[in-house]
């Protein structure tokens, strides 16, 4: 009799421990997820402050889908020249005729490199070329 009571007490205690453990797991997981999201925001802000290194016209495909089709040869394209440094990149694209194709820069491929050049990234696909036909600058430079 005494033995049975001890066993049931142990079972209740272990069940209580398990419930507390499960509560702790769920709360710790929630806090971890929330902390990771907050850290992502913080590191994103740090990354934005540090190395901006990105083209103003980062998503030409999305922008080209939102633009209305022009009546004539002039195509609405985002202006990339001089818009490298960050916050001044306006979302409103400037209209310019797409008559002169942009030449791809012949620099070595590095993400840090295009910081000073007005053409933002050597890896940025030119507006004149579709995404599938674009080749990296190294292969374009000949290599012979």
């Amino acid at each position, binding site marked *: 009799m005494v033995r049975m009571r001890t066993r049931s007490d142990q079972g209740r205690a272990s069940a209580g421990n398990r419930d507390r453990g499960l509560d702790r797991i769920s709360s710790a997981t929630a806090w971890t997820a929330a902390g990771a999201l907050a850290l992502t925001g913080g590191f*994103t802000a740090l990354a934005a402050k540090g190395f901006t290194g990105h083209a103003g016209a980062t998503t030409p495909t999305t922008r080209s889908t939102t633009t209305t089709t022009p009546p004539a040869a002039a195509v609405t394209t985002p202006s990339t020249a001089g818009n490298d440094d960050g916050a001044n990149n306006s979302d409103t694209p400037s209209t310019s005729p797409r008559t002169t194709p942009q030449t791809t820069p012949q620099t070595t491929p590095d993400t840090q490199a295009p910081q000073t050049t007005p053409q933002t990234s050597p*890896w940025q696909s030119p507006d004149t070329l579709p995404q599938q036909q674009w080749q*990296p600058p190294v292969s374009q430079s000949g290599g012979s």
Partner: protein
Amino acid sequence: MSVLVAATSSSPKALWYFARGSGIVTTLLLSAATVLGLLSTARAATRSWSRLVVQEMHRNVSLLVLVFLALHIVTIELDNFVPMHWIDAVVPFVSRYQPFWTGLGAIVLDLLLAIILTSIGRVRIGLRTWRAVHWLAYAAWPIAMLHGLGMGSDRHERWFLAVNALCLVAVVGAAAWRWARPVPDTPAVVAGHVVRMRAASPLERQRRSA
């Protein structure tokens, strides 16, 4: 996802920044998962953090690693700053953009997917196979660190190096503690069955037969 869309509409560079931030957090989470795994194998427990809590947190944090790794890859692909394709994230060393460092990231994704999938099907594949695959987790962590230090855009920033140093100290410290600590001979619950790690002692056998 709506946050991503809103951030992208507010600034065209938001995806690029978010990709970098999520990559660093993925490194942090992977380090935490590795530390928790080491603690779990050493059967570490305190009064408030039982072994069950340590093991389950190891599993949950590992799943969080996959979530943030997916965010990292998706935002890089959507951003178009680097010419990467979806296949580059899975198949190592085929990327045109920094193929070696990108390939290391692809290896990490493959290893993590293998670990997660074998953990899900652990009952079917058996404990030995699962454990052999799970050892790959120890390889995934340094490869992920190399990937970040090799091609991360913030690799020259102090805070980035500090975060990586923190991860390094945590994992190396946990590994040293794990190998210095003898694992106690206790039963382990594997796939729903209680498995004795060693053969029962003669005294225990006598007690059972009595």
